[in-house]
């Protein structure tokens, strides 16, 4: 949020307004937008019969009313009030986007129906199909966690070994250069018949996708450590293991986290492709399955869930990094 250059240059956001002195226009407009969405959803006749129209409309109305009630007291609610103020332009735009979507699909049927379901159809999916959707999330997370952990641990160990040992570097470097840039998905056909199960094959592929960037960045981090750090430690009586564990690795950690970040992105790609092509579970499989049944609302629902999952995992990684690298200045905020 505050990672942009403008954060330092723009004038500070005005102090939270108190009472009625300054009507909190931002929040009021956001509330009005959600009420408008509720009005259009509940008031206008529909081209088709949609079971969750009332739920969706009622939800929009509740949010709109909540914002209107919150508006006058937001200045006195501390961080919660400030957060509502901060996000209310986004909330207003979101409501208008929903409104356009709702009108174009359910109300005037401008967009062809099976491919572009109205928002309430997606609400319906979350209500009716949540066991299958939830199971798919769990399956995806289990596969991802296994593969990512193996890949990250192997990549880290290999990267440190290449950086620290000439012999390991001699043997590993050519292999890494030749095989590393190959997209992990290219291994898919081979992996599916070499490994005993599609699950172990996919774990391997996720690990591969994670391992390559983690290895290269860990290695470059270790190789780039200021040589004077080693001189200091050596004069102070450090052993070789101390030089690796207490000097090289902590100094390389910022690079390692770049590798972990890139590896996480690559692992999402491989995860979804592997689930679409071989594994009979997970969000990738769900997407494929929904498309096969022309259940487009389910597909959109799965995409939303997938976006939430990937974004949360990246957020989690950045939180871990912020804790471990608190000593660094100027960290990028995610």
């Amino acid at each position: 949020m505050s990672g942009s250059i403008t954060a330092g240059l723009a004038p500070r956001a005005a102090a939270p307004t108190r009472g009625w002195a300054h009507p909190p226009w931002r929040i009021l407009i956001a509330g009005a937008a959600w009420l408008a969405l509720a009005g259009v959803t509940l008031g206008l006749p529909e081209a088709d019969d949609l079971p969750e129209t009332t739920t969706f409309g009622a939800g929009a109305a509740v949010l709109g009313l909540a914002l209107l009630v919150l508006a006058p007291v937001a200045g006195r609610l501390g961080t919660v009030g400030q957060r509502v103020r901060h996000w209310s332009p986004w909330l207003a735009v979101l409501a208008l986007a929903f409104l356009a979507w709702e009108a174009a699909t359910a109300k005037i049927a401008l967009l062809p129906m099976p491919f572009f379901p109205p928002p309430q159809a997606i609400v319906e999916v979350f209500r009716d199909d949540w066991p299958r959707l939830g199971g798919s999330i769990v399956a995806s997370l289990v596969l991802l966690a296994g593969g990512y952990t193996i890949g990250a641990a192997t990549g880290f160990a290999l990267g440190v070994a290449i950086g620290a040992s000439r012999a390991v570097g001699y043997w590993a470097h050519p292999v890494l250069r030749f095989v590393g840039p190959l997209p992990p998905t290219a291994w898919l056909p081979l992996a599916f018949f070499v490994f005993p199960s599609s699950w172990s094959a996919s774990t391997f592929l996720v690990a591969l996708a994670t391992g390559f960037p983690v290895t290269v960045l860990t290695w470059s981090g270790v190789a780039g450590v200021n040589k004077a750090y080693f001189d200091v430690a050596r004069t102070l009586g450090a052993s070789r293991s101390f030089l690796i564990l207490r000097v090289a690795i902590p100094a390389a950690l910022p690079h390692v986290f770049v590798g972990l970040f890139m590896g996480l992105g690559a692992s999402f790609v491989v995860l979804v492709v592997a689930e679409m092509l071989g594994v009979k579970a997970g969000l990738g499989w769900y997407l494929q399955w929904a498309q096969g049944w022309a259940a487009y609302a389910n597909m959109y629902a799965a995409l939303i869930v997938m976006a939430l999952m990937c974004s949360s995992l990246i957020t989690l990684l950045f939180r871990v990094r912020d804790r471990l690298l608190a000593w660094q200045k100027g960290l990028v905020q995610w």
Partner: protein
Amino acid sequence: MRERPAVQAGGARLTIEAVSHAFAIRGAALPVLDRVSLTVKPGGFVALLGPSGCGKSTLLRLVAGLEPPDQGAIAIDGDPVEGPDPSRLLVFQDPTLYPWRTVRANVALGLEAQGVGRGRASRADAALHLVGLDGFAEVYPHQLSGGMAQRVALARALVNEPRLLLLDEPLGKLDALTRLAMQAEILRLWQEKRFTALLVTHDVEEALVLAERVIVLGDRPAAIRAELPVPAPYPRHRDDPAIVRLRREILNILGQQT
């Protein structure tokens, strides 16, 4: 690690005998030191003075045991130097503190590396007190000024109770005022702890204010051009006639007529 006597007998005697050294640059040998010989008595303070890049720092690296000399011998109390040892410590021009460690953890680095388990934090805090940085133990290096960082680097060396302190232009990057304060500080620590000190500098006044003996090195490959005892008592003043006379003499040797 070699067994060290239980009671530290103050500073170490340093003997450098006919040391020559060269760097290999693209296959060609670039000589940096040419038959340098000198002795520093236990608890002595000697300054090596010379133009930038003349090989003074290389000599300190050799004494520290970070590299073996091409020719000649270096010995501490008669024992040849075979590698780095915490009884012989180097303070660099850059403080080179580890940014991921707090000031206290930076100071305790040597104790940790040598496997000293007990009393690490209290010894580190005592060393920080010695350099006047009480209350900065929990701070990270990027929060320190240049002078404070160099004080931490001094504390990181002193906590190991070195018998020989090698100072490689430790004040070279500090502003003029901080520099004066740090010179007084180094002098105080040396008088208090009685370690042997070998200082490399290109600042004539700094050498004359601090050292008992100043050794002037020539351009690359560095050889000893002159050796001048500084007879003035401590604390010395820059405008002391003896210092002024020596300063002129050294500048003459270095070819800077005044």
